[in-house]
């Protein structure tokens, strides 16, 4: 209603107006990108690993004294027996790595032995017949490995498995139209037959650059007889802490030729997840903090400038009151004024937000900003502006009309 004269007034107060509009624009650009990043990172955090995470214990065992493959094989076999006999342990297997561990091996996988036509990458897990039960993986089609199919892999041996189990995601990708069970694929020069398909099982990596194939996992029937062994232990329900406390001493008592790090040697799967997502969580917190700081500064800036303007315009507020403005008229004057500055700010800010996102996409594999975040950011900033302006505007509306007669 009084938009035209308010705009005229703002032209008179260019510096303050531009400053606040610019601050709103910058805050919008940063806040909607930050919210987007937060949402993405939290999305990572909540992505299921595919394994039944409760009651899972991981032991990182480094073999000491450079044992050869046969020695490792026998020590590993005796460890597995020891662990299986430990009270509270439900199941156990030995492997090279597990989901979210952050370390692992990648193979090419495809329909032909020719390396150039390998179409995809897959994470490789060396497992035995106890892996599915220990991890709580669901077999969707086909069968599990048999004990007699488990081979050995040492430094110089070739990895050429006859049978493999793959995840549903990978199966669907390789064979979109038919069941993968019984089909041959190539991880090496020799064909491997897919004997089973499991549901979800993530790769060891969580960063977004691996996101495209983060459920392309392949289980190979091998014991890995080199430098270190990872034991994956499923405890009886409720026994996790108890087993975790005793497992190290038990293994050392059985055989001293090993190193289990006091810090990270024994971890629950919850620890693994927390460490894997450390940087995601850190980034989300950082972005949240930055947003909060920007919003606070902008809110404070609006409160400050409006308070200054109200003080500066006491006399003219009094004159307006003398000429018939009600308290509401004065209140709505300042709210409208702020809204106009806010709208200008968010228009510029919306453009800046998209620009910042494009730059992030170029620099750091960021995804395209969904428009919903810009809309949410615009709403947040306009509401923040109106909220911030409310107190000084109410003060303005309380300026008595007699102020018009006071000489300054």
């Amino acid at each position: 209603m009084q938009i035209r004269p308010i705009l005229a007034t703002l032209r008179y107060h260019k510096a303050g107006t531009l400053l606040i509009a610019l601050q709103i624009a910058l805050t919008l650009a940063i806040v909607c990108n930050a919210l987007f990043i937060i949402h993405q990172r939290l999305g990572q955090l909540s992505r299921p690993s595919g394994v039944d995470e409760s009651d899972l214990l991981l032991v990182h065992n480094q073999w000491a004294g450079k044992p050869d493959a046969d020695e490792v094989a026998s020590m590993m076999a005796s460890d597995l027996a020891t662990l299986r006999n430990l009270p509270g342990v439900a199941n156990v297997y030995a492997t090279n790595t597990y989901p979210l561990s952050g370390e692992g091996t990648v193979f090419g996988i495809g329909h032909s032995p020719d390396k150039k036509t390998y179409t995809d990458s897959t994470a490789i897990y060396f497992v035995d017949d106890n892996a599915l039960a220990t991890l709580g993986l669901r077999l969707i089609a086909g069968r599990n490995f048999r004990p007699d199919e488990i081979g050995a892999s040492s430094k110089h041996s070739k990895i050429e498995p006859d049978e493999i189990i793959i995840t549903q995601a990978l199966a669907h990708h390789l064979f979109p139209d038919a069941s993968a069970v019984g089909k041959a694929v190539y991880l090496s020069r020799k064909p491997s037959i897919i004997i089973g398909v499991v549901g979800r099982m993530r790769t060891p990596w969580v960063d977004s650059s691996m996101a495209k194939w983060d459920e392309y996992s392949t289980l190979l029937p091998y014991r890995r007889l080199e430098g270190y062994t990872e034991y994956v232990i499923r405890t009886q329900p409720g026994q996790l802490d108890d087993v975790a406390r005793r497992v190290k001493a038990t293994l050392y008592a059985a055989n001293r030729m090993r190193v289990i790090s006091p810090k990270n040697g024994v971890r629950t799967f919850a620890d693994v997840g927390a460490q894997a997502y450390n940087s995601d969580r850190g980034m989300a917190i950082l972005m949240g903090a930055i947003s909060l700081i920007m919003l606070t500064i902008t809110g404070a800036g609006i409160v400050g400038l409006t308070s200054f303007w109200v003080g500066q315009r006491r006399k003219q507020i009094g004159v307006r009151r003398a000429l018939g403005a009600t308290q509401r008229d004065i209140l709505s004057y300042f709210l409208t004024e702020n809204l106009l500055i806010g709208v200008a700010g968010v228009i510029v800010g919306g453009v800046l937000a998209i620009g910042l996102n494009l730059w992030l996409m170029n620099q750091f594999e960021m995804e395209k900003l969904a428009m919903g975040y810009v809309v949410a950011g615009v709403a947040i900033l306009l509401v923040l502006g109106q909220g911030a302006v409310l107190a000084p505007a109410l003060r303005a509306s309380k300026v008595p009309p007699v102020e018009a007669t006071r000489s300054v």
Partner: protein
Amino acid sequence: MLKMTHLSKVYRTEVVETYALRDFNINVKEGEFVAVTGPSGSGKTTFLTIAGLLETFTGGEYHLDGVEVSNLDDNARSKIRNEKIGFIFQAFNLIPDLNVFDNVEVPLRYRGMKGPERKERIMSALERVGLASRAKHYPAELSGGQQQRVAIARALAGTPRLLLADEPTGNLDTQMARGVLELLEEIHREGATIVMVTHDPELAARAQRNVHIIDGQVVDLAEDPRFHTAYTAAAGQVRS
């Protein structure tokens, strides 16, 4: 039009109570042109601010246009100010951020008047005061006399029945002052009631009636011995 009986106004600060008006009685009839004189600090401005509903009073009664105003709420008072009263201040009180046109428009907007009617009233008010060509100028670009004429146009545009002027010529030289007074006389001839505070005996003499305030009270000059000293002091002050 404007009737105050036994009205009092007390300003309270932490230490003192000042009676700005006490047992104040005045009756201004519709269509009158009254000049209010009195020494500095006698309560002239206080009287005008209460008359114009800019401020409340402490005791007594005030009937404006037949309505007892002390029970009106803030919105009702705003509405009366907007529709019935025009103000002219000594310091002009134009809004510096707005040009002449927008300044005159302010009370009309608060009245909720439509754009075309506002424009017509603004332009005719500016023509009245001879400043139609300055509509796009800002107050700072005008002389004092021109600013006061804009303020008069702003008061006129709403066609108020009561015009309250607090030393409208106090900041102007004699020639400009005469121009402003002629304008007020013209407005008066068209039917408005005018109450004008002035220190200038020459201007006061041109009003239909003079009211003198001393120490917050209306006094009858013929009977009050205090008048002569006060009157001379006030007149002397203006000349210096």
